[in-house]
């Protein structure tokens, strides 16, 4: 009897682990399908003119999303202008002076902010920038993306600075170097590959955001000349074209999705490369 029970337990254990493997396969199916469809449906749209031309008016086939690709880069750059100083300095504060209640509170808020729905960042940017300026603009989109980038940059900067051995700080301080110079020129410099990782992660996330741009930077079918005008972005174009009834536009939406995934994949590979080669010594 007890032998039988033992066998049943063994079989049950094996079955449950097989079930776990089944879960992995089930999760991989949509991933593979998403990649497959984006690749197969998007690759047809990727012509030279897709990258070099403006969108054509309704009904005319052809044209490209050149302005949207540039627009996404501009918006991410604007977001970085806001989030880089805040994120890096706040990260330094949390890592180097972070042994108090205030720092603990900021750390907690940063973690909580990283779960902020991106659409809410858009609403905040709308009330902060669009309402006072009375029109949509690239600045508003940049503010929204900046808000979304801050948590990632802050927390990775903190984590990476913490990985720098204390002995390095002590050695530098013992030589009589001022603390701020130690932090900037020794600690930060040692951890810079990791900090760049965080920045790349934040950029990858910001480049893929659509919701916060819908009613901040809006969209634009032409080249943008100033930053206080609506600006095109790849993601908003994918959305507008994807839900449109025109076959050519839908084809271009898939092309845009492929470009977007390609950009993000490259960034995450760069992150892997940076962390694996340069941070090995520290971890």
């Amino acid at each position, binding site marked *: 009897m007890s032998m039988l029970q033992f066998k049943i337990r063994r079989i049950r254990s094996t079955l449950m682990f097989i079930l776990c493997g089944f879960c992995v396969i089930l999760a991989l199916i949509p991933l593979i399908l998403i990649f497959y469809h984006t690749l197969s449906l998007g690759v047809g749209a990727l012509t030279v003119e897709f990258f070099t031309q403006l969108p054509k008016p309704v009904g005319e086939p052809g044209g490209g999303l050149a302005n949207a690709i540039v627009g996404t880069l501009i918006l991410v750059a604007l977001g970085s202008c806001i989030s880089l100083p805040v994120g890096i300095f706040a990260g*330094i504060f949390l890592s180097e002076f972070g042994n108090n209640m205030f720092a603990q509170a900021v750390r907690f808020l940063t973690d909580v902010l990283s779960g902020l729905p991106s659409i809410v960042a858009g609403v905040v940017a709308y009330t902060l920038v669009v309402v006072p300026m009375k029109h949509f603009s690239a600045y508003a989109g940049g503010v929204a993306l900046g808000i979304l980038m*801050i948590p990632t940059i802050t927390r990775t900067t903190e984590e990476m600075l913490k990985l720098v051995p204390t002995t390095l700080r002590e050695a530098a301080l013992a030589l009589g170097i001022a*603390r*701020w110079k130690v932090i900037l020129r020794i600690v930060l410099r040692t951890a810079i590959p990791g900090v760049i990782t965080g920045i790349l992660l934040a950029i990858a996330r910001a480049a893929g955001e*659509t919701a916060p741009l819908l009613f901040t930077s809006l969209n634009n079918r032409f080249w943008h000349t100033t930053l206080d005008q609506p600006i095109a972005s790849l993601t908003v174009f994918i959305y507008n074209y994807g839900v449109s009834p025109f076959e050519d536009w839908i084809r271009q939406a898939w092309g845009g999705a492929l470009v977007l995934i390609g950009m993000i994949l490259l960034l995450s590979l760069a992150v892997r490369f940076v962390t694996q080669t340069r941070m090995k010594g520290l971890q």
Partner: protein
Amino acid sequence: MKLRELIIPAQLREGENRGDSIFYLLTAFFALMIFLLVVLMFYEMYSMSSLTREKFGFTFFFRSVWDPVLEEYGALPFIYGTVVSTLIAILLAVPLSLGIAIFLAEVAPVWLEKPLSFFVELLAGIPSIVYGLWGFFVMVPWLRSTFQPFLSETLGFIPLFQGVPYGIGMLAAGFVLTIMILPIISSISRDVLRSVPRSQYEAALALGSTRWQAVRIALAYGRSGIIGAIILGIGRALGETMAVTMVIGNRPSISLSLFNPAHTMASVLANEFTEATTDMYVSALVEIALVLFLVTLLVNSVARLLIWSVTKNTKDVRL
């Protein structure tokens, strides 16, 4: 002098190095900005939503009318849509991602675990608009032609699965959300499982339990971390916008059937914000955004506290 002593820590004052004090204040200033950002966000949305707050008060959340022409607003259909779509996603994603986490942490050999983890985390990196596009053009037609007819044939006696299989609707939104929150829950649960001390397993195995029973003990040991991971997934599902907007049908109605089109708090913002022409309309939408902000803030706080409580003594859980 009093103020200086209050804000600059002692170890920096002793050195009497002006550069240190300035640098400290600079970094503290930026840390304070994060603090102020959250306050500012709340303040902005609170003041922008004053019109509807004054007109409807708390009844705003219990009214199911949404009529911009008559200036009658109620958030109930959106709250309902958000809650139900999140519920579907959690019910499907939790068992799946626990299975994945157990497989990655306990079963998979290193050569398999590394690329699998990378792939599952890749899912988290795909922009939501791509999920939306895929859901709209691939998943929804499949739901309409295959899965929903199958559901209504086999489980059609349950009101949830009755009605016309549009494809687009609550069920599609729930499915897309499931795919989207899988990576978050599974990668954190995997880290939590790994941070369970080896001695827990060894003790269980020594008492004669099978490997599966040992895993269950590990799950029990790390349960607050895993609950934290699940709540984090809830937070993500509540606020997800683009993918949901593209597949849910965007109709502010409350119906029992999961086949019917619905609307969520995030998707109504994405759809109607640019069309909001009157102050009252904007105010109603901003109030929905404010509620979404507060709810996700609360949900995320709870999740973080739970995850911190498990992993603070072991290695850091990277998100």
